Structure formats: structure tokens, C-alpha cells
């Protein structure tokens, strides 16, 4: 029977604590984005500030653009300046952004005019823009390459469980209270980690020098660290942009359609919310396992395929017009698709990167693909709704876009040839 040395035990403990820090930080951050930012700000704008949907859409677009620019700028600096590639620097950047975001969250209810709202959005975009490359790039410091799928699954499952089940009242006042209470202790803990020298932070700082942390599984072995942006990255950016665009374009409309409200995140029935949250968790685990085993193209094929199917189901249901009963299969499939792509999003950019490139790639991936696509499509959805576009027509357009991407992925696989060992 082999004995585990104290050093190994301590290392395991530190590594485990790193996992806890990363999962907690990313899960709360993601839950904040999909609830407070995406839904809470719309509530603030429409209910408290009496802004039109077009005005909110324009402000959301502004947020997307600034977040995107700041994020890519910080990511580029991280790519160019080795000092910013160090773990402690990332930790301090993260602390700065979370501190700023906590203050802004606490102050959101003092916003009373559109001008103040816009100013709030500018500062929030600044905080979010810093947070994206800083937090995502910590993957190479804290998470082993072989565990990234399951860690992404843990983040996704936790974030959606919090958003879909625990956060029950979707108005900005409640969101503010809930998130300030969560973010404040996190902010203090991060400050201690970032500014008080200690063995734990030193240990984490060293991990990015180990190959099993540093080089992602999708990094080309021949040129792992050199090029600015590879064509491969551009394809992934485009695909993730498509996914986020499809998701947000359909999701906001489904949420705001009374017929589907009771089988969505905001359902009054706690059992329905638990069902959706549970589906998110199970789908995230499935995605985490498959992420490690399948080629990325097949994962994208699944995601687009399920998105196309679920929007087709919503279209069919709305055309049938047979009463108020909405089968839970609809939100179940939506939750599966969303969990699948979220897991991919949390693991993909790190797996395409090294410690040098991760800041830039995650900024491009998350900020450009994620944020810009989300807010452009959210804005578009609001405008369509304002212009009176019927639900089935709206969802049918989303379905068509998903189907185009699905066919595109099929064609890509077909044109690139039938590689041996590829699986469905």
C-alpha cells in the first residue's frame, strides 16, 4: 500500500482549492450575466425608467461594443506583456473588476434617468471587459487540461441551477440585493488572495509552467505559442457567435411570451423550475463527458441540431394553437442545448490556448462571440417584438438560422473528408 506524502496531500488540497475558486468565481459570474445583466437591466429600463424597448436595445448594444473593445484590448495586452500573464496579475485584474462591479451593482437602483443608465452601462462594460480575459485566463493556472470538460460542466450546472431555480424573483431590486450579498464576500476573499503574499497563491502561480496545465488539448503541437490569431480560431469564433446569437434571439422572446412563461425559467411552479434546473445540470454533465471524448466539430453539430429541433418544436406548438398546455419537452430541449454550448464555451478557449495566448483568445471568444452576439441578438429581438412580429415568425427565423448552421457544419465535415475514427 503506497503512502501519500504530506507534500502530495497539500498539493492536492491546494489544487482542489484552486478548482473551488475557479468554479465558484465563474459560476457566479455567469449567473450574474445571464440574470442581472440580461434580464435585470431590461426590467430596470422598462419598469423603473420607462424606456422603450428600442432605447434599451440601443443601450445593450452599447454595452456589447464597449465590453468587446475593452476585453480585446486587455486580452491583447495580456498577449504582449508577460507580466500580465502571471497568475497574480490576473487575480488582481479580476479583483479590480469584481470590486467595481459590486459597487456598480449596489448603485444600480440610484439610476433614474437614461443618461445615468448609459453612464452605468459604460462603467459596467469596463468592469466586464476586464473580467472576461482575466478570469478565463486563470484556467491555465488552476485547471488541469484533462479536467476542463468536467470543470466546465460544474460551472455550467451551478450557474444555471442558481439562475433557473434559486433566483426566483426577476426584478432588479431583488437581483441587486442577492448579488451584492454574494459578491461582497467574494470581493473581500479575492482581495486577500491577490494582495497578501501566501503559499497558496504562489503554488497556483507555478502551475501554468507545467505542461499538463499550460497547453490545451486543441493546441497545434507544431506552433503552440507563436501566431496572433490562427484561422482555426476564427472558425470557432464564428461558430460560437452563431450559437450565442441563436440562443439569445429565441430565448428572450420565449421568456416574454405569456403562453411559454410558465414553462420557462420564470415559471411560477417551483417543480417546473426544478425540472429545468435539473435538466441543465444533467445536460452539463453529459456535455462535460462528451467534451473530453468527442471532436469539437461533432459537439457543434449536436448543439446546432438541438437548437434547430427545439425552435422547430416551438414553431409547431405555436401553430397548433391547442390551448395552454405547453409540454415540458420544449424547455427541456432548450436547457439541453444551452448547457451543451455553455460547457463548450467554458472549456474551448483554454483548450485552444497556452498561458501566452489565453488572455487574447478568451477575450475574442467570450467578448466577441459571446457578448456581442448576445446583445446584438437581444437588441434585435426587442426591436422585432416592438414592431409586432408574431411569435411563430420570430421563432421560425431563429430556427432557420440554426438550421443553416447545422447544414453548414454537416457540409464542413463532408468537405473536410471522412476522417477515420470520427464519431457521431
Amino acid at each position, binding site marked *: 500500500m503506497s503512502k501519500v506524502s504530506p507534500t502530495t496531500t497539500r498539493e492536492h488540497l491546494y489544487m482542489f482549492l484552486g478548482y473551488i475558486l475557479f468554479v465558484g468565481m465563474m459560476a457566479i459570474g455567469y449567473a450574474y450575466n445571464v440574470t442581472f445583466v440580461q434580464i435585470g437591466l431590461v426590467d430596470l429600463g422598462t419598469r423603473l425608467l420607462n424606456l422603450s424597448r428600442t432605447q434599451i436595445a440601443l443601450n445593450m448594444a452599447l454595452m456589447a461594443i464597449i465590453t468587446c473593445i475593452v476585453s480585446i484590448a486587455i486580452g491583447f495586452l495580456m498577449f504582449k506583456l508577460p507580466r500580465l500573464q502571471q497568475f497574480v496579475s490576473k487575480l488582481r485584474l479580476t479583483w479590480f473588476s469584481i470590486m467595481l462591479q459590486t459597487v456598480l451593482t449596489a448603485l444600480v437602483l440610484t439610476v433614474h434617468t437614461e443618461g445615468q443608465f448609459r453612464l452605468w452601462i459604460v462603467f459596467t462594460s469596463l468592469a466586464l471587459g476586464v473580467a472576461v480575459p482575466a478570469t478565463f485566463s486563470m484556467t491555465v493556472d488552476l485547471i488541469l487540461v484533462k479536467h476542463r470538460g468536467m470543470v466546465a460542466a460544474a460551472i455550467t450546472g451551478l450557474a444555471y441551477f442558481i439562475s433557473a431555480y434559486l433566483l426566483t424573483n426577476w426584478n432588479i431590486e431583488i437581483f441587486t440585493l442577492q448579488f451584492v450579498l454574494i459578491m461582497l464576500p467574494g470581493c473581500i476573499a479575492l482581495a486577500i488572495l491577490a494582495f497578501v503574499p501566501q503559499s497558496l497563491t504562489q503554488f497556483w502561480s507555478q502551475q501554468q509552467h507545467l505542461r499538463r496545465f499550460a497547453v490545451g488539448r486543441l493546441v497545434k503541437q507544431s506552433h503552440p505559442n507563436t501566431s496572433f490569431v490562427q484561422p482555426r480560431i476564427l472558425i470557432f469564433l464564428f461558430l460560437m457567435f452563431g450559437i450565442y446569437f441563436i440562443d439569445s434571439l429565441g430565448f428572450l422572446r420565449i421568456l416574454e411570451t405569456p403562453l411559454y412563461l410558465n414553462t420557462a425559467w420564470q415559471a411560477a411552479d417551483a417543480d417546473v423550475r426544478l425540472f429545468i434546473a435539473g435538466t441543465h445540470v444533467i445536460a452539463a454533465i453529459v456535455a462535460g463527458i462528451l467534451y*473530453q471524448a*468527442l471532436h469539437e466539430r461533432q459537439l457543434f453539430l449536436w448543439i446546432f441540431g438541438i437548437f434547430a429541433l427545439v425552435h422547430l418544436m416551438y414553431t409547431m406548438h405555436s401553430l397548433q394553437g391547442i390551448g395552454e398546455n405547453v409540454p415540458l419537452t420544449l424547455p427541456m430541449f432548450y436547457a439541453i442545448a444551452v448547457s451543451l454550448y455553455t460547457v463548450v464555451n467554458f472549456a474551448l478557449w483554454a483548450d485552444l490556448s497556452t498561458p501566452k495566448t489565453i488572455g487574447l483568445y478568451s477575450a475574442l471568444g467570450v467578448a466577441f462571440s459571446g457578448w456581442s452576439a448576445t446583445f446584438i441578438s437581444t437588441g434585435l429581438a426587442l426591436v422585432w417584438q416592438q414592431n409586432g412580429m408574431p411569435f411563430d415568425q420570430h421563432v421560425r427565423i431563429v430556427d432557420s438560422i440554426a438550421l443553416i448552421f447545422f447544414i453548414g457544419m454537416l457540409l464542413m465535415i463532408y468537405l473536410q473528408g471522412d476522417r477515420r*475514427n470520427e464519431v457521431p
Partner: protein
Amino acid sequence: MKRHIWIILFGLLLAGCTGDVTSVHILLDQTYTLPESSPNHTVVALLDGDVNLTQGSQFEGSTFIISGDYNLAGTYTGNLTVFGGTLTIGDSATVDGIVNIAGGQVNISPDAIIQATIQEGDVQIPQATLTTGKFWLDQIVWFFVETVPVILLALMLRRWWWQPFVNVETALMENTMVSAAMGLLVGIVTLVLMVVMAFTLILLPLAMLGLLVLFIAIAAGIIATSHVLFSMFTRRTGIEINDWLALVIGVFIMMLLLNLIENVPFSSIITVPLLTIGLGAVALTRGGTRPFETAHMTEQQ
């Protein structure tokens, strides 16, 4: 060539999504009165429940009655196909188009105006007859009805598709969690996709074919899982047994186990993983046609 066939099939599937249908009603279990004036070309599929076309109402489109009651008192134009259930054409009804009677019961009032062509067939929806009324006897009968085809499939796999079967077993043993995850995804998505396709009616044959393929894949998965488990058992206990016999005994025990625990509360905790692992292994190896290697392994090569 194989890829071309897939593209043609996919093209046909997309073609099935087009057409000039403006409204679709799929009725499962409720009473529904059609609006006084239906949009051009409405499709109604009555799976169960009651549908009424009241006096003075006009309908244009197609109706498929699988089960339930369809009471027609208004003006109907289009195809009306009766597979089962009851169609009642009342005194005030006017029917124009084609009435296909493949089964069920059709009552036509002598005062109704029938300008439609009536085509009669003798296709009946089969009724379950394998019940004796005695619980345990029924259970045993159903067990054999389910088990014998699976054993026959196992023997066919052993005889003609042994290498594909080995591929499935290898995937199942070496990548159990991946198989379970893939099986869960394939199972849920395929089932729902087939139901959605069936609701379009035009794709109903494709949906039936898809379901058949799914059930064969599940059966193949059960066979592979039971063979792996039984082989492990014989190795551990040192029992030497002919491979054909091991296959049959393994499948028999597995089917017995699945049937016995069927009515136990929370038995799905056991049955769902057993079924999904096998199905996932079949999917990962594309029906056993190639060995499965994880992306990590192929990236290393």
C-alpha cells in the same frame, strides 16, 4: 457513396418541411371545435378526443383520424382519412373531396350531402391480443415476446456481425461514461425528433423507420452490455462456457432483470444507465462499423 445517400435523405427531409399547409392541429386528448372558417389548407390529426365541425362552419384541408370522435356538421372540403375512431357525418354536413376509410367506424346521415369520392379499404389498426387476464401469466408471455427477438438478434450478431459487435463491446468497456452520456443524448433527441417528424404526417414513414432503428440499436446495446457483464462474471467465477451460450444466457438474465425490476420504485436508476450505456456504445461506433477512439487519442496520433 454512403455520404451521398445521407445528403439525399437530408434533402428529402428538408423538402418535407415545405408545402402550403397554413395551420396544423394535432389533438391528443381533448374536445376541440374547429373555427367557423379555417385558414386555407389546415391539417388536423386526431389521435384521441373529440373534434367538432359545427353547422355553418367551413373547413378546407386534410384530416387524419387515428382514434377518437370526429363529428362533422359543417362544410368540409379536402381529404378525410379514417384509420380508427369514429367519423360521424351529420344531417347538415356537406363533404367534398376524398374520404379514405381504412378502418374505424363511419356513420353517414342519409340527409348529408356527399360530393366526395369514398374509398374503402380493410386496413385495421392491430389490437393487442396477448393478454390472458391473469397478471403473472401475462408478465411471462410479455417477457418472452420481448426476450426471444432480442436473443435472436444476439445470435444473428454473433453469426454475421461479430467484429462490429466487438467494436461496440470495446467502446462500452473502455469508455463507459462516454457511452452513457452519448446514449442519453441520442436516446432523448432521437425519440423527440421521431415524434416531431410523425406530427408532420408527411414524414410519418421516416419516423417509424427511425424508431425501428432506435429500438434495434437499444436491443444491440442490451445484448452488448449483457454479454460484457456475463463474460466478466464467468471470468471471475472461473466458469468455462461456450461463447454462444454465454451470449444467450447473458441476454436472458439481463432481460429477466429488466422485467423484474420494472415495477420497483426508482428502478430507472438502474435501467436507464443500462440502456443508455449500450445505446451510446452503438452510436459511438456508428453501429459497430468502426472502433471508437476518444478525441484525445486521435489528437495524440
